[in-house]
C-alpha cells in the first residue's frame, strides 16, 4: 500500500510527463514553450492582475542596477600632534625614558631603586603641575596607547595616597578649580 506522499509524487511525475508530451507534440513555437514553462513554474496570472509587460520587467531590472545613494554622515579626524622644539635637557630625558621603557619591556623591575623612582616621580609631578597652573596645558602622556588604564589607576591611586587625599576630594577640587 502506497503512502500519501508516494501517491502525490507519482501523480506529480505523471502530470509533468503529460505536460512535456503535450508541449512537444503540438508543434509549439519557442515563445509559447517559454510561456508554458513560466506558467508551470509561476502559476497562471489571475484575471484581475494584468500580466507583467516586457517594459515593466526591463524597468525593474534597470532600477536594480541603479547606483546606490552615497551619503557622507561623519568624518572623524586623527588627533593632530604638534611637535615643539627640543632642548638638551629634554633630549636627555627622552633617552632616559627610553632606557626605562626597555627595562620594563624586558621585565627588569629592579633596574631603578625605589628612592630613584620617588625622586623622578616627585620632580615630574611638580614640573607638570607648575606648567598646568601657569597655563601651559598639555597631555600628561603622549597618546592613548602610552600607558594602560591599569597603569594610570595604580599611579593616580598611589599619588593620592601619598598626600592622604580621597577620590571624592579630587572630584570636588576638580569641580571647583576647573583644572
Amino acid at each position, binding site marked *: 500500500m502506497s503512502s500519501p506522499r508516494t501517491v502525490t509524487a507519482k501523480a506529480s511525475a505523471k502530470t509533468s510527463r503529460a505536460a512535456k508530451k503535450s508541449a512537444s507534440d503540438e508543434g509549439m513555437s519557442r515563445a509559447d514553450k517559454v510561456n508554458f514553462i513560466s506558467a508551470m513554474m509561476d502559476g497562471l496570472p489571475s484575471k484581475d492582475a494584468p500580466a507583467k509587460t516586457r517594459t515593466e520587467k526591463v524597468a525593474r531590472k534597470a532600477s536594480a542596477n541603479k*547606483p546606490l545613494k552615497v551619503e557622507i*554622515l561623519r*568624518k*572623524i*579626524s586623527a*588627533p593632530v600632534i604638534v611637535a615643539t622644539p627640543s632642548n638638551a635637557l629634554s633630549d636627555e630625558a627622552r633617552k632616559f625614558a627610553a632606557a626605562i621603557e626597555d627595562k620594563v619591556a624586558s*621585565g627588569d623591575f629592579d633596574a631603578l631603586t625605589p628612592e630613584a623612582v620617588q625622586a623622578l616621580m616627585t620632580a615630574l609631578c611638580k614640573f607638570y603641575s607648575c606648567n598646568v597652573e601657569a597655563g601651559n596645558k598639555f597631555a600628561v602622556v603622549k597618546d*592613548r596607547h602610552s600607558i*594602560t588604564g591599569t597603569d594610570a589607576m595604580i599611579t593616580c591611586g598611589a599619588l593620592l595616597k601619598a598626600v592622604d587625599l580621597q577620590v571624592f576630594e579630587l572630584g570636588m577640587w576638580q569641580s571647583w578649580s576647573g583644572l
Partner: protein
Amino acid sequence: MAEQFIGKASEFKDGDRQIVRIGEDEIGIFRHEGQYYAYSNFCLHQGGPACEGLTIANVEERLRPDKTSMGLHFTDSMNFVCPWHGYEYDMKTGCHVKDKSIKLRKYDVVTKGNDVYVVA
C-alpha cells in the same frame, strides 16, 4: 555589489575615519597604517555605532615562565571600541577581540588613483 565612490585618498590621513550611508547600509571606513578597512557601523551587541568609538591598541598581559605577571602592555595591533557598551573589534579583521566568532560585516575598499571606493 558595485564600487561606490566615498572620497579622495588625499583627504584621508592615517588614523582618519569616515562614516557613510550607502543605500540601507551604514559603513565605517578606517585608514590605518596606509591601508583602508571598512565595516558595518552596527555593533553586533546592541546595534551601537561600532566604528565611531575609541581606537586603542590591543592590551595583553605578559607572563614569565613561572606564570607571574610582567604587567599589561599595548601590542602593535589596533582595535576600535563601540562607544555604547565597549565591544572591541580588531581593526584588520573586524573580529571581536575575545570571541572570534563575533565578526562585523566587512566591505572591500578599492583605490583607483586618488579615488577611494567601497564595494557595497
